[in-house]
């Protein structure tokens, strides 16, 4: 068996490698330095010892100031990484992200740019309730000038983080709390996964499940089960939500003729709507069934485990959506 690496180790390694190569790579965030334990989720563990407190800066609880300082440092030619502890707290810094990071390249006519990575984490299923669990990727994908990335496995997390840090535009990098301990085969040092390229994680011929982040695991599990029923499911892991890899997704659905878009975020006005709409525009007349969407319930994420499990996209519902597509009679 080859060596394994967790997502936590993978992200740490990617940042470590980038910091070793470029003095301009810095990390700002609450509790991120060694004195505070290397971050709530230990992503920056060991980095202060190597790179010092000028480059690993533990900040006050000031999300606007954290992101703003990273925007400014990026304008001066640095490649800062902002750690925003949880995705819901990103809302406190929306002005800096939406009005500044995303737009300064355009509004300056290309004279300046903002090579910034905003790392954040979230996830339904740990009982954190309504203000610590949301997936808000659609908010950012809606803004011209932002790239939105979310890995589903450790190896991709490492490679996507390297690509995000190297990117000359702002990247929102969404991690999932439940995925930090997941192990992948160790991709080794220097691994890079280009932004904007989806992965065909499992090949199939009857229906495509298009998803990203933690729900890729659900999709793969359901694909395995449906194979026993004779249904061949193709799983597409977008990896980068924006810009959207239209070529890979369209090719998959052209082949299978059927698609289910799955995400943890609430379904209403989510990325699933955009993807379904694009598939309709590209493949109308070639689809064998309507493209359907599966997402979280339209409420705040509840705390009680029973409610949380009822809220989250349900594996049976995913399987049923695929079966309905395959059995669609019009």
């Amino acid at each position, binding site marked *: 068996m080859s060596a394994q690496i967790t997502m936590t180790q993978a992200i740490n390694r990617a940042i470590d490698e980038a910091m070793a190569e470029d003095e301009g790579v810095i990390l700002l965030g609450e509790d991120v330095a060694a004195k505070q334990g290397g971050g709530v989720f230990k992503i920056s563990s060991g980095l202060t010892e190597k790179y010092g407190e000028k480059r690993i800066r533990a900040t006050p609880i000031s999300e606007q100031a954290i992101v703003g300082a990273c925007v*400014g440092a990026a304008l001066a030619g640095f490649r800062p990484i902002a750690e925003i502890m949880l995705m819901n707290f990103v809302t406190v810094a929306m002005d800096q992200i939406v009005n500044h990071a995303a737009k300064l390249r355009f509004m300056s006519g290309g004279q300046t740019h903002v090579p910034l990575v905003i790392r954040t984490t979230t996830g339904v299923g740990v009982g954190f309730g309504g203000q610590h669990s949301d997936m808000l990727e659609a908010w950012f994908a809606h803004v011209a000038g932002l790239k939105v990335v979310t890995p589903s496995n450790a190896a991709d997390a490492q490679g996507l983080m390297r690509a995000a840090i190297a990117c000359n535009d702002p990247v929102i990098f969404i991690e999932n709390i439940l995925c930090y301990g997941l192990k992948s085969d160790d991709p080794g040092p220097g691994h890079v996964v280009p932004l904007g390229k989806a992965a065909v994680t499992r090949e199939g011929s009857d229906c495509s499940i298009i998803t990203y982040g933690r729900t890729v695991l659900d999709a793969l599990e359901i694909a395995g089960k449906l194979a026993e029923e004779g249904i061949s499911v193709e799983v597409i892991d977008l990896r980068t939500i924006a810009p959207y890899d239209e070529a890979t997704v369209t090719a998959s659905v052209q082949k299978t003729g059927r698609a289910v878009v799955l995400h943890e975020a609430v379904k209403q006005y989510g990325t699933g709507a955009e993807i379904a709409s694009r598939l309709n525009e590209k493949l109308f007349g070639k689809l064998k069934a309507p493209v359907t969407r599966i997402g979280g319930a339209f409420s705040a994420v509840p705390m009680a485990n029973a409610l949380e499990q009822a809220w989250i996209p349900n594996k049976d519902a995913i399987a049923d959506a695929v079966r309905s597509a395959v059995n669609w009679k019009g």
Partner: protein
Amino acid sequence: MTDMTIDRDKLRDIYTRTMRVARADEKFRSLLMTGKLAVIYYTVRGQELVSAAAMAALEQDDYLVTTYRGQHDQIAKGVPLNPLFAEIAGKVGGTCRGKGGSMHITHPETGVMVTTGVVGSGLPIANGLALASQNRGDGKVTMVCFGDGATNIGAFHEAMNMAQLWKLPVIFLCQNNRYGEHTAFADHTKVDSIVTRAKAYGMTGVHVDGNDAIAMYNTTKAAVDRARAGEGPTLIEAMCYRMMGHFFGSDFSYMPKEHLAEMAAEDPLPRLRQLMLDHQFTEAELDAIVADLDAQMDAAADFAANSPLPGPEEIRKDVFEEEIAA
């Protein structure tokens, strides 16, 4: 005590910067009045000197972050007039190819890194520029300009605290022009002055008459020297007046008569002219400076008028590094 002496060359420099701002502002207003320009413009009448004296204390490669009412800061910092006029007119020869406009002037060659249209948002960004200088040890100072209205938004407080915590080489220049949009200072803030807030962050704070060229220059210079020496940030509250409405052409009948009278009495332009005469500059010398500037304004207005409009392909450029598909 603020040093009240000044070098004659520096005084001439401040006068020239002040009048460059003043003549540009007057030119913009005349272009708007005659219909040659039809854009939103936040006039800087009354704030010419505060900027000129502050920018005269910076080097060209020091960073500046300013706000939508920022033409005085940009011009005083040295942004060339031709592309500035063209940008305000939305032309392709503008600093930002017409994609930013007066509220978003950017000109890195003169250190103008961000002009923001969102009140208070420049302060956290200024910290980041200063942080880069601190890590690099490049000796640059960052100045961020904002009005009294910006001091009640959260970004101000977050940024002030962080700057002092990390002793960043940044200068927070609050140009207290007595109004936040249509709301007078006393109606939006309970403390008597902004500078009292510096104490809350353990920061050095200085209150200065922004219309006093020598005091304004020396105060800024002292803050710049402290920042370059690694002694951390300074909050400067420079008192001045916004002598017209919120944006050009907007009603300002909400300003009481007594305020308008006080404002007229404190007009920085005649006051600076008198200071120059007191320092043995001649009328002829000062008039020659202004005449030369006016010729530059006419040339800039012509440049802007003759610069082409940006084409629709510009919409796909500069969204990302790579051009987006049509």
